[in-house]
C-alpha cells in the first residue's frame, strides 16, 4: 500500500497532558508528527472511540514535537476527551483548513478571541510577534470562571526584545476586566492596521460592523462538519466569491469576502 499513499493525513498523536484550565475548558498537549501544520488557525479532526464523526478542534500552538489544543466540553465527545490520560493515543486528521495569513497582516494587528475562540489566537500572536509585528489582544468571556490564557498571552512578549503585547479582557458580567463585550475594549486602537478574530458568530458580526470595512479582518468561522477536509460539502457558507467550505477554503475568511 506504500506506493499508493501519497500523504499521511491521519496521524497517531500521544497525549502528554490534559488539564482543566477554566469552567469546562481543557488544555491538552499532544506529541507526534506535526509536519502537516503550516499556519496558526488550522485545526485537527480527532477520532474518538465510540463516536462516528470526528471532532474538529483548533490548534492553539504547535512546534516540531507536538501541538496544544484547548477545547470546551460541549457534548459527549468532548466529555470523553476531557477524561483521557497521558499516554493514551488519538488518531487525528492533521493540518486542516487554511489558517491565518500572517504575511498579509500589517504592522499592528488586533487579535480578538471570544470564549473558546481564544486558543488559535495564541499561536497567531506568537507568529506575528516573531515577524516583528505589534500585537494587541482582546479577549472576551462570559465571566471570570471562563477566563483563561490572559497570563500566557502577556508572557509571549517577554522573550522578544523591543516588543510588547497589550492584553485587554472583557467579561459579560464584569467579574473580571472590563464589563461588557470585546467591542467595549477597542478604544484608542485606531492605529491598528488590521484584525484577526475567532469566536461566536455574534462576536464576529459585531466586530465586522464596528470596523465597517475601514479595517480589513480575517475571521475564523465554525460550522458543523462531516469530514473536515472538503469531501462532503456539509459545512458550506455563501461568500461574495461564491460557495465556500468552512473546513477547506476556511475556516479563516477575509472580511471583504464574507456575508455577515
Amino acid at each position, binding site marked *: 500500500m506504500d506506493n499508493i*499513499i501519497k500523504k499521511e493525513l491521519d496521524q497517531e498523536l500521544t497525549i502528554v497532558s490534559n488539564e482543566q484550565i477554566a469552567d469546562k475548558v481543557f488544555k491538552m498537549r499532544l506529541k507526534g508528527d506535526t509536519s502537516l501544520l503550516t499556519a496558526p488557525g488550522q485545526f485537527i479532526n480527532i477520532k474518538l472511540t465510540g463516536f462516528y464523526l*470526528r471532532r474538529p478542534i483548533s490548534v492553539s500552538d504547535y512546534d516540531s514535537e507536538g501541538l496544544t489544543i484547548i477545547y470546551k466540553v460541549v457534548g459527549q465527545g468532548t466529555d470523553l476527551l476531557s477524561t483521557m490520560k497521558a499516554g493514551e493515543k488519538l488518531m487525528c486528521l492533521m493540518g486542516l483548513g487554511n489558517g491565518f495569513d500572517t504575511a498579509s497582516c500589517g504592522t499592528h494587528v488586533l487579535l480578538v478571541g471570544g470564549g473558546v475562540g481564544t486558543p488559535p489566537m495564541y499561536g497567531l500572536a506568537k507568529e506575528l510577534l516573531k515577524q516583528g509585528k505589534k500585537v494587541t489582544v482582546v479577549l472576551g468571556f462570559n465571566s471570570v470562571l471562563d477566563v483563561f490564557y490572559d497570563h500566557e498571552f502577556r508572557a509571549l512578549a517577554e522573550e522578544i526584545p523591543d516588543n510588547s503585547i497589550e492584553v485587554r479582557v472583557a467579561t459579560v458580567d464584569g467579574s473580571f476586566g472590563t464589563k461588557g463585550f470585546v467591542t467595549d475594549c477597542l478604544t484608542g486602537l485606531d492605529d491598528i492596521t488590521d484584525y484577526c478574530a475567532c469566536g461566536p458568530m455574534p462576536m464576529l458580526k459585531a466586530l465586522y460592523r464596528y470596523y465597517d470595512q475601514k479595517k480589513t479582518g480575517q475571521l475564523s468561522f465554525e460550522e458543523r462538519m462531516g*469530514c473536515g*477536509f472538503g*469531501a*462532503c460539502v*456539509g459545512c*458550506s*457558507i455563501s461568500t461574495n466569491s461564491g460557495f465556500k467550505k468552512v473546513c477547506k477554503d476556511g475556516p479563516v475568511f477575509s472580511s471583504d469576502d464574507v456575508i455577515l
Partner: protein
Amino acid sequence: MADISTELSGIRLDNPIIPASGTFGFGAEFSHLYDINILGSFSFKGTTKEPRFGNPTPRIAECREGMINSVGLANPGIDKVISEELPALRKIFHKPIIANISGFSVDEYKYCCERINKEDQVEIIEVNISCPNVHAGGMAFGTSPEAAAEVTAAVKSVTDKPVYMKLSPNVTSITDIAKACEAAGADGISLINTLLGMRIDIRRGRPVIANKMGGFSGPAIFPVAVRMIYQVYDAVNIPIIGMGGVSTAEDVIEMMMAGASAVQVGAQNLVDPYACPKIIERLPILCKELKIEKITDIIGKAHG
C-alpha cells in the same frame, strides 16, 4: 491471488469498490492523499440542472454508528460540471466514471442525462430518484413505481449509456420500485440511498439540522441495505450496485453475496479518508481466507 475484478453492463472494473456520490466530490480531496486510480470507479457528486447551494446549515448531525446529512445536492450545476469538473477529473482519474444525476422534474432529468451522455469518460449514468418532484407536491420520485418508471423511461430515451436507477429505501416495497424501473428499461439498480432520519438537540430542544430531517447513513443502516439488495436481486434480472454503511472488506463480500455486482463506499470516506484503499488492500486477503478464487463467483451466493 484472488481475482477481485467485476463487471457492470459489460464495463470491466478492476475491483468492486466505488466511492458513493456525495462523499467523494470529483476526486480532488482524495487524489492528493492516495492514488485514486486504484478504485474500481467512482460516482461523482450529484449534479442538477441549476447550481445549488443546498440546504441551510447546520446540515450534518452525528448518530451512533452513522450520521445524518441534509446537504441538499449542493453542486455547481451541469454546465460547470461538464465544462470544468470533468476536464479536471480526467487529469487525475483514468478509469470509467459513474455520473450521478438528480432532478426535480422529469424534464430536468432528461436535460441533464442527455448532456452527460455525451461525456466520454462517463460510462454509467446513475439516476438519483430520491429527489422531490416539484410537479407532484414534492413527493420523491422514488417512492412510487409509476414515477420511478417515468423517470427511467425518460432518461433511457435520451441516452445510450447504461442507466442505473438509484433507489430510495424510504418505501413500502423496494421490489415494486425496482421491478418498475427494470420494466421501464433500466440497465441496473443502485441501492440504497439514505434512510430518512432525525436528531434533536436536547440542550436546545430543537432538531440538530436546519432542515429538521435528513439522510441517515453509515454502518447502522448496513443491515437494511443488505436486506433490500437481497430482495431486489430476487425481483429483477439486471445487475445491482449495492451501498449503505459499507466500511470493511467483509461488508463488501456480504453485500455481494446478497446480490451486488459492485459496492459503493460512502460515509466511511468521511471518517476515514483511506477507507477505500484499506478495503481494496484487504479484499484479496479476505477472499483467500474464504476460499473465493474469483469475487464474481459469490454474487448472489446467499440465495442458495
